């Protein structure tokens, strides 16, 4: 069978081309997954076939245009009006070629859509306009996907609002993330590093900022990283919990600002000012509510309950559960003490390690 023959040829050819060039001469990005060389090989084969036919078409066209250019006002030139064997030939040759391309493409595709049994599974949630990655050990990260090198990773993906799509160019993988369904993709990273992750299904205002980083680690380092990702919030000293919010804020940043400027949701500055003055807000149903700690917490845990009249209710309701109690608490304190956590609208820079150590950071109390 053609397919199985090609299957055995592919790795050999891929290994060959991978050694003769650093990336694709036609502009494919760096290769960082096991399937990338296969995809690039196929891409190159198709491109070379295209180059051949393009040169043939334009070459013949150019030759005829020069060779048979008009020199007088002759109204008529004699020549063949058809040639059935020739026409059948140039129908059949492309047909054979595209059938061949189809089968080669099919091989790679079957491989790409079948995650290995032992894949490491990460849950992915797409929301406007950020990604959340949940790990088996309970770790939850925003816009940063940690993966180990040399181990198949399966992403199980869902959307909480509109259609998104995960695209990691260096891995040559992409899959739409559709509300109401689970979709999946898998890859095996071949080298450590920092790679782009894009949303490639148009999802509104901040679509071009729905980008994340894929960080690939050596396996033992990976274990440390996700352990840290699961535990860091627990290690934060209570006195510094408000500062932990600065590390969580990127999840809020697509809708909320720190400096009072308006996106689609209230700026945290606006909430903070109301909180400090003990003011009230008018809700969409006409009632008023005092902006206190409880109000801020409720707004995170149940964003559709007390909706302000000036903004539509577009915050995903599941965020509180996703974050967990301690991170919600961190965000509440972050907003209540915005003058320390984001003085002048600028996020204070802290590291996870600093938050777990006494005295490493000047206290605001």
């Amino acid at each position: 069978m053609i397919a199985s023959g090609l299957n055995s040829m592919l790795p050999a050819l891929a290994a060959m081309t991978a050694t003769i060039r650093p990336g694709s001469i036609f502009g494919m990005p760096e290769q960082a997954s096991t399937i990338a060389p296969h995809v690039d090989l196929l891409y190159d084969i198709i491109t070379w076939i295209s180059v051949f036919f393009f040169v043939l078409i334009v070459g013949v066209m150019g030759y005829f245009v020069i060779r048979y250019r008009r020199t007088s006002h002759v109204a008529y030139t004699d020549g063949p009006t058809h040639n059935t064997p020739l026409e059948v030939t140039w129908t059949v040759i492309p047909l054979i070629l595209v059938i061949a391309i189809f089968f080669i493409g099919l091989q790679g595709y079957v491989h790409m859509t079948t995650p290995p049994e032992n894949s490491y599974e990460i849950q992915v949630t797409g929301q406007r306009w950020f990604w959340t990655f949940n790990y088996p050990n309970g770790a939850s990260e925003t816009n940063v996907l940690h993966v180990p090198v040399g181990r198949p990773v399966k992403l199980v993906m869902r959307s909480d609002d509109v259609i998104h799509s995960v695209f990691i160019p260096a891995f040559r993988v992409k899959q739409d993330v559709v509300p109401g369904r689970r979709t999946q993709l898998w890859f095996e990273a071949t080298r450590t590093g920092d790679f782009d992750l894009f949303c490639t299904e148009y999802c509104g205002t901040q679509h071009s900022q729905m980008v994340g980083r894929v960080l690939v680690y050596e396996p033992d380092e990976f274990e440390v990283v996700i352990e840290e990702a699961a535990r860091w919030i627990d290690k934060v000293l209570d006195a510094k919990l408000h500062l932990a919010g600065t590390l969580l804020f990127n999840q809020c940043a697509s809708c909320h600002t720190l400096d009072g400027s308006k996106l689609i949701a209230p700026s945290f500055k606006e909430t903070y000012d109301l909180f400090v003055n003990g003011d009230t807000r008018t809700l969409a149903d006409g009632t008023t509510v005092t902006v206190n700690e409880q109000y801020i917490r409720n707004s995170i845990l149940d964003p559709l309950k007390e909706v302000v009249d000036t903004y539509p209710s577009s915050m995903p309701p599941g965020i509180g559960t996703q974050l967990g109690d301690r991170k919600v608490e961190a965000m509440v304190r972050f907003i209540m003490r915005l003058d320390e956590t984001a003085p002048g609208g600028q996020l204070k820079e802290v590291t996870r390690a600093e938050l777990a150590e006494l005295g490493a950071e000047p206290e605001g109390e």
Partner: protein
Amino acid sequence: MTTIDATNPVPEPPAYAAATDNYLTHTRGFMSWAGTLDHKRIGVMYLVSVLSAFFLAGMFGMLVRTELMRPGQDFLSQDQYNMLFTLHGAIMVFLVIIPSVPASLGNFVLPIMLGAKDVAFPRLNLFSYYLWLIGAICAISSIFFGGVDTGWTLYVPYSTHGTTMGGVIPVAAAIFILGFSSIFTGLNFIVTIHRLRPPGMTWFKMPLFLWSIYATGILQVMATPVIGITVVLLIVERAFGIGIFDPSLGGDPILFQHFFWFYSHPAVYIMILPAMGIISELIAVHSHRHIFGYRFIAFSSVAIAIFSFLVWGHHMFLSSQSPLMNVVFSAITFSVAIPSAVKVFNWLATLYKGSITLNTPMLYALSFLFMFAIAGLTGLHLGTLATDIHLHDTYFVVAHFHYTMLGSALIGMIGGLHHWWPKITGRMYSEFWGRIACGLVFVGFNVTFFTQFVLGSLGMPRRYHDYSGPGWSPDTTALFFKYHLVSTIGSYIMALGFFLTAAYLIHSLFRGRKAPANPWGGRSLEWQCASPPPHDNFSEPPHVGDCYDFSVLEWDEAEQGYHWRHDLPREPGEA
């Protein structure tokens, strides 16, 4: 100048007389145009309207390219950018390219090519035009309802419950109305070709342009109702919250994509087939060579029309459609490559031993071949499953469909516009400026869009307002910047070419040399009536015959055009 010899016993020769009365001067006044049933005037009205819409959507495209020239926000906010690329796409597809060739040039040329006085249903024809106009007003009014930022594809649930902009329903309504305009035009042409062919013009003696318009008509009539129903369902869901597509209401967003592409893939061929028909005419006429492989070209139009109904799923390889369906759709997709390749090879063979002139229409035809080759070949990358996964929804796709829609469909249309300009207006444009402008468009186009193939392969997603920001790697931003910069510069060169085209064409209306009946040596019937044609098209029945047999023509120095050969018995006597 020739006159008709009334004593000639053989069937009357074509009316070469430069008629004093033509369709432009036949009646005067605004109402004589607004209420006209003359297919030529309706064609001209369409032409002006479609080109105006092309200008508007082209400007939107230039704004989009200008914003993308540098990383960071320059002068368009994210929402403004999203609105502009949406309107650029929607106007270009529904208001410009779909009606461009059939409704404007087709309307003008088709009945004359058949030797007929008009289309089969002149009133329906005028009604189509007014539907287009209402659709256009509806689409543009969306700006005043708060704009629309869904992309021309209107994917749910974003379009039903994701966007807060109020222009979705006006645009959906516009697509519905424009759909009917398109259906009526297609129906009209199908009936016209069936019923009004002159005696002696069998199916295989029709100009190939008519075959392509016929195949297009079939697609318009059969595919367009699906998009009509789909946008109605969309409006119902958005306006009344009835769950059809939105999963939070129990609907299925993938269903929308199936409906949408069931129309919109055939729509690609509604756009490209008429342009292919034009190219068949242009290449034969401007190389004075009988078209090579008439039947293969004619059948390939029909084959494309049929296959195009079976490949819509290739737009949905990553939508979560089942892998088995993806495999089937990929296989059928490749079948479309064959008739397209056959056409290209036949056009090339037509050039063989021809007498090729590099005037403006021919330069556009050759540009078409160049760009259509790239458009078709890069379709292989996208039809192949394993490579499409990487290239899907990147600039590779943007480049591919601009090569198809602008580089092929619209370039073909502009070639046809130059080819038939003397016939439509009775004036010759400046060849010199025509060639310069064609060169600018060609160079500008390729600089703009070829770069985007590389950009897409490198991973740049489409519909992005920016390629820098908090989550972006500076290396990626710097890499994409180089290509975006080149692409934007290319788009300015292309725009310059189009403005120049507009300038010399308008200039020719006032200062252009009077056009002879047959400036290029065309053999199909439209070259047998005066330029511009009289109100009834032909004062005498034209010669039907092999419309690619140029041996009956000869050059007339005095007329600066071609006419029937003196030594043939049917040749009208010289004055």
